[in-house]
């Protein structure tokens, strides 16, 4: 990057055939990625999926084993971190404890000999509403304040690309929600390209225009948040982003619009447009909140799938909704989320019930049947890790 100038606007980022091996294991097998300028892009995945490594490669803190990195069309693969128009908001914030907040923010400007660094630093601090703390040392700030200083310290340099490494991971839930919105606002305001790494699916969906879900060093699926949620392509995505009921069976009939999958004596219909695999054994799914719980056998109706009857085996109350688990012979355990419109559960354990959903809510997976179990397993492990804490991430990926 030329000394003394700012990037005019965000730049796009392109990763071509990136591979990264560490002694003993491969963090990224082969990664191709294009992030258009000005977008808020989230890399979402569980611990050890390679997302932090990807970020460090882009920042220049690691060198790829193979492949190229282009920022704004320029190959930066072999340049040093301080030569790249990229700045990072670190997970631990990495604020220099021996400098004041102002000195921290002015650090990058001074290194590049940019004119009037103090004024620009104050300006950046005003953007994050912390200018009144400019003379403090970072140690005396709260977690949220430190996070905002870290953000100011990065964006004051007007990088073409801003990297966010789980920047909200250390904050408590309420502050995290607030910072998510603030970050999004700031991104819109400054118009830079943001690359955000996170394991928190809700955070990614709230903030990003585009999400790439990573697992085991590969991108499973990429797209707008709604698209990923409504039409997951793999078992991993279907269960990592929210929950899904998955059913595997033989394709028993096809019309130009719909695909029918036999499931024991029952059958499920899925729109052809939402099913990438259209013959042989396929896995189809539906989100639990799309299901309707019925206490009597429904009348067959075009455009609706019905499964049942089955027995309620578990009911758990979680505030806005209640989760029912229903054991349906031939289909296995089916999960239903029902809004709590009335007091208490609608049905109790042991009750005989049916479930139904609109055909257009179903989706088919790209996964071959033998890949489904692995994807479900990975997503379950990832969810388990989420509960136990996100701190294991850097240790795993930086090793």
């Amino acid at each position, binding site marked *: *990057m030329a000394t003394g100038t700012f990037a005019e606007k965000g730049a796009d980022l392109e990763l071509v055939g990136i591979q990264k091996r560490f002694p003993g294991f491969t963090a990224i097998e082969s990664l191709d990625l294009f992030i258009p300028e000005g977008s808020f892009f989230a890399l979402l995945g569980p611990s050890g999926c390679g997302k932090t490594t990807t970020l460090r490669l882009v*920042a*220049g*803190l690691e060198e790829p084993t193979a492949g190229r990195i282009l920022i704004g069309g320029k190959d930066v693969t072999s340049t*040093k*971190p*301080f030569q790249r128009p*990229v*700045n*990072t908001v*670190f*997970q*631990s914030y*990495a*604020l*220099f*404890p*021996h400098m004041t907040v102002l000195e921290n923010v002015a*650090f*990058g400007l001074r*290194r*590049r000999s940019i004119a009037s660094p103090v004024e620009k630093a104050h300006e950046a601090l005003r953007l994050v509403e912390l200018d009144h703390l400019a003379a403090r040392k970072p*140690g*005396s700030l*709260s977690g949220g304040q430190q996070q905002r200083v870290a953000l100011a*310290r*990065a964006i004051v*340099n007007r990088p073409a690309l801003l990297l966010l490494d789980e920047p909200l991971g250390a904050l408590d839930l309420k502050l995290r929600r607030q910072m998510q919105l603030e970050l999004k606002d700031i991104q819109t305001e400054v118009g830079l390209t943001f690359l955000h790494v996170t394991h928190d699916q809700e955070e990614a969906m709230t903030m990003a225009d585009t999400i790439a879900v990573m697992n085991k060093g590969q991108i499973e699926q990429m797209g707008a948040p709604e698209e990923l949620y409504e039409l997951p392509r793999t078992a991993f995505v279907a269960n990592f982003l929210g929950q899904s009921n998955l059913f595997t069976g033989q394709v028993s009939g096809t019309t130009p619009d719909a695909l029918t999958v036999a499931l024991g004596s029952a059958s499920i219909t899925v729109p052809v447009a939402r099913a990438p695999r259209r013959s042989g054994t396929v896995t189809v799914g539906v989100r639990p909140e799309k299901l309707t719980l019925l206490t009597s056998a429904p009348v067959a109706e075009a455009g609706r799938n019905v499964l049942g009857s089955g027995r309620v085996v578990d009911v758990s109350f979680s505030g806005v909704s209640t989760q029912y688990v229903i054991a349906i012979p031939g289909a296995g355990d089916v999960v239903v989320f029902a809004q709590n419109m009335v007091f208490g559960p609608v049905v109790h354990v042991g009750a005989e019930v049916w479930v139904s959903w609109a055909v257009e809510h179903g989706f088919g997976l790209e996964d071959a049947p033998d890949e489904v179990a692995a994807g479900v397993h990975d997503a379950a492990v990832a969810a388990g890790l989420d509960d136990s804490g996100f701190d294991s991430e850097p240790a795993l990926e930086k090793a």
Partner: protein
Amino acid sequence: MPAGPRRRSRIRFRGLGLPIYTALALIFLLIPIAYTFVFSFNNSGKLNIAWQGFTLDKWTHVCDAQGVCEAFTNSIIVGVVATVLATALGTAIAIALVRYRFRARSLISLLLFLPMATPEVVLGAGLAAQFLSLGVNKGLGTIIIAHTMFCISFVVVTVKARVSSLDPALEEAGRDLYGSAAAVFWRITFPLLVPGIAAAALLSFALSFDDFIITNFNSGAVDTFPKFIYIAAARGIPAEANVIASAVFILAIVIVVVAQVTRAARAKRLARLH
């Protein structure tokens, strides 16, 4: 709980036992210091053994005793030079050990551990044998060489602890914020290591200032303060030696206590801010 009252009385006893034990142990540690301090005011002649009455003369005329101030000056010179050398060499090793991987690591760790595991008398005799076989004249220079040698390992251990506790992300942030390797070192790494380096330097100085055994083997005709005391011990220590030792002691204690109180005050202020 049937044994309630008895249990409570036992807990009370245990609660008091440990502080009393600690107090006694501390008094035990401090008795000779108090003795040395009190006898710095003894109106004694050459022999400072029996109490002869109180005087401030020894404090005001500390250099009157022959050789004591020269020896003290030599100790300061040796301490300062050896501290600077050992701190520079040891800090560099500590940084390399934490931040870089290399094959000879365990060998180097052993090389650093051995001087600490070698009795001083062996270190002293070894260097003396070396100087003897090379025909080197012993004096201030050889004392400095010896002190630097045994201080290096202690510096490495002290600074290493500090380097390991540094978040590597701080240096990465420096690089990310357009800092060259030199800028990152001098503006981030080094300032953050200063407390560890200072602690190592203080430790080196203390070790050097109080060393006698190694010095005795490598000093030739030059006296340091401990060597002065050792030689004088045969015929009686002048009270002036007590004065110097007491003054150094008070200075050191004041520095340490002031540092601790300010740190505690700062911690309290920080706690209030949050």
